[in-house]
C-alpha cells in the first residue's frame, strides 16, 4: 500500500543544504506494521513528515495505494513526536480534531470515542487544556486522536516516549489490541529496540544521517503473545541491538 523509491530530502539551513534522507527505499503491505529504528538525527521524523504530507519538497517516488501522498484524499493518522496538540482546545476537542477536520459527526462515533479515551486514561481529564497536562497525558491525547480517526495509514513518531514504564506497556498492548481490530497499515518510529520487537511485524533499520533503510527484518515473534515473559523476546532484542550497533558504528 505504501511504496518509497529513492526518497531524498534536503533541508536548507541558512543557505546551506543539509541532507536528511538519501535514496531511501521502503515498502509497506496493506495491514502491516513496520517499526523503524535508527539513531537520533538519522531522519526518522523527516520520513514521517513526507509520508504524512507535511513535507512535500523531496525527490524520489512516494505513493500510497499507487497515488500521490495527499492528506486531503487519504486518511492519514499522524502522531507527531511533539504531540501536535492545539493549546486552545481541551483534551476532548484535541482528540476529536481528526473527525472535525474531516467534517464527520462526533455522534456516530460516541461509544468508540469514549472507549478509546477511557482506555487511554483520558476520560476524566477530557475537559482540561494541554497546558494543564503532563507530557505523558499529552502524548496519550495524540494517540487517541489517531485512533479515533480510524485512519487508512497510521504514522507514529516515538509515540510512547513520554510515558512511564508501566503506562507504556499498557498502551503498547492497547495499540496492539486496536490494531488487531482494524489492521491499519502502520509505520512506527522508535529508538527503542524492545518496542520495535514488541510492536513491529517488520523492523526496518536506518543508517546514521543521512538516513537510508539498510535492513528490513521479519519479526518472528510478532503476534506470539506474552512476549515480556518469553526468553526469545529478550534474545531477539539483544541480537537486534548487536546488529544495529554494527550498522551505526561505521
Amino acid at each position, binding site marked *: 500500500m505504501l511504496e518509497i523509491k529513492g526518497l531524498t530530502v534536503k533541508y536548507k539551513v541558512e543557505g546551506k543544504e543539509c541532507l536528511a534522507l538519501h535514496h531511501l527505499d521502503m515498502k509497506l503491505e496493506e495491514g502491516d506494521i513496520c517499526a523503524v529504528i535508527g539513531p537520533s538525527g538519522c531522519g526518522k521524523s523527516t520520513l514521517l*513528515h513526507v509520508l*504524512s*504530507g*507535511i513535507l512535500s519538497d523531496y525527490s524520489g517516488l512516494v505513493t500510497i495505494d499507487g497515488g500521490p501522498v*495527499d*492528506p*486531503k*484524499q*487519504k486518511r*492519514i493518522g*499522524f502522531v*507527531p513526536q*511533539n504531540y*501536535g*496538540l*492545539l*493549546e*486552545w*482546545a*481541551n483534551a476532548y476537542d484535541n482528540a476529536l*480534531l*481528526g473527525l472535525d*477536520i*474531516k467534517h464527520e459527526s462526533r455522534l456516530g462515533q460516541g461509544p468508540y470515542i469514549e472507549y478509546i479515551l477511557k482506555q487511554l486514561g483520558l476520560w476524566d481529564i477530557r475537559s482540561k*487544556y*494541554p*497546558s*494543564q497536562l503532563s507530557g505523558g497525558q499529552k502524548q496519550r491525547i495524540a494517540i487517541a*486522536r489517531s485512533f479515533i*480517526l480510524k485512519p487508512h495509514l497510521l*504514522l507514529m513518531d516515538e509515540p510512547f516516549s513520554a510515558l512511564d514504564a508501566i503506562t507504556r506497556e499498557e498502551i503498547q498492548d492497547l495499540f496492539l489490541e486496536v490494531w488487531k481490530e482494524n489492521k491499519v497499515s502502520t509505520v512506527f518510529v522508535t529508538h527503542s529496540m524492545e518496542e520495535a520487537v514488541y510492536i513491529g511485524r517488520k523492523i526496518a533499520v536506518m543508517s546514521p544521517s543521512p538516513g537510508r533503510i539498510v535492513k528490513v527484518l521479519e519479526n518472528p515473534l510478532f503476534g506470539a503473545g506474552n512476549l515480556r515473559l518469553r526468553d526469545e523476546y529478550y534474545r531477539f532484542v539483544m541480537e537486534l541491538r548487536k546488529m544495529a550497533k554494527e550498522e551505526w558504528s561505521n
Partner: protein
Amino acid sequence: MSRKNKITGYLAALIFLFAAWYGLSFLAQIPFLPSPAVVFVNIKKIFISDILVHLVYSLWRIAAGITASVLVGIPLGLCMGYYKTWDKLLSPVVYFTYPIPKIALIPLIMLIFGLGELSKIAMIFLIVVFQIIVSARDSGRAIPKETFYSLYSLGAGSLDIFRRVILPASLPGLLTSIRISLGTSLSVLFFTETFGTQYGMGYFIMDSWMRVNYIDMFSGILVLSVAGFLLFFLVDLLERLLCPWKP
C-alpha cells in the same frame, strides 16, 4: 484565593483613593475641589437626565473605532504574519507610521472627515489599528510551525487552519493590544470631543468647567473614569471567556 486577594487589593486601593480625595477637599476647602460625597449626590441626581446621553455618545465612538480597527487590523496583521510578501510590503509602512503621535494628525483628519462623528471615530481607529496590526502580525509569526503539522496531515484547508490555529493563537495578544490602546483612545476621544460637538463626556466636562460648575465637572470626570475602568474590565472578561486555555 489569588482572585479574592486581587479583589481585596482593588477595593483597598479604591477606598484609599476616595479617602485621599475626601481628605484633600476637606483640608483645602476650595470650590474647585468638591468633596466626593457632594459629587456622588450630584451624579445620582443628574446622571440620567444630563450625563447619560454624553456617555452613550462617547461609548459609541469608542466602540465604533475599536470595531473598525479590529475588522481592518486583524486580517491585515494576520496576513502579514502568515504571508511573507504581505509582510515585506507592509511592515516598513507600519514601521514608519507607528511611532507618529496620532494626535498630531487631528488637523489633517478633520480636513478629511470634517468636524463631526467620523473624524472622532477615525482618530480612535488610527490609534488602535496599529497596535492590532502589530500584535496580530507578531502572534501570527510566533506560532510554531509544528502546530500546523497535525492539521496539514489531516488535510485541513486554509479556512480550517485560520479558524483552528491562527485566530485562537493570536486572540490573547489581540485583546492585550486592545487593552493597551484603550487608555490612549480614551484621552484622544476626550480631546476630540472638546470641539465640533455638543455631545460626549469630553464636551460635558469642558462645558461644566466653562460654566464654573465644578461639581458637574467632577461628576463628569468620575463617570468617565469609571467607564474607562469598566471597559478595561470588559476586555479582561472577554479574555477569560474567549481564552480559557490561558494558564
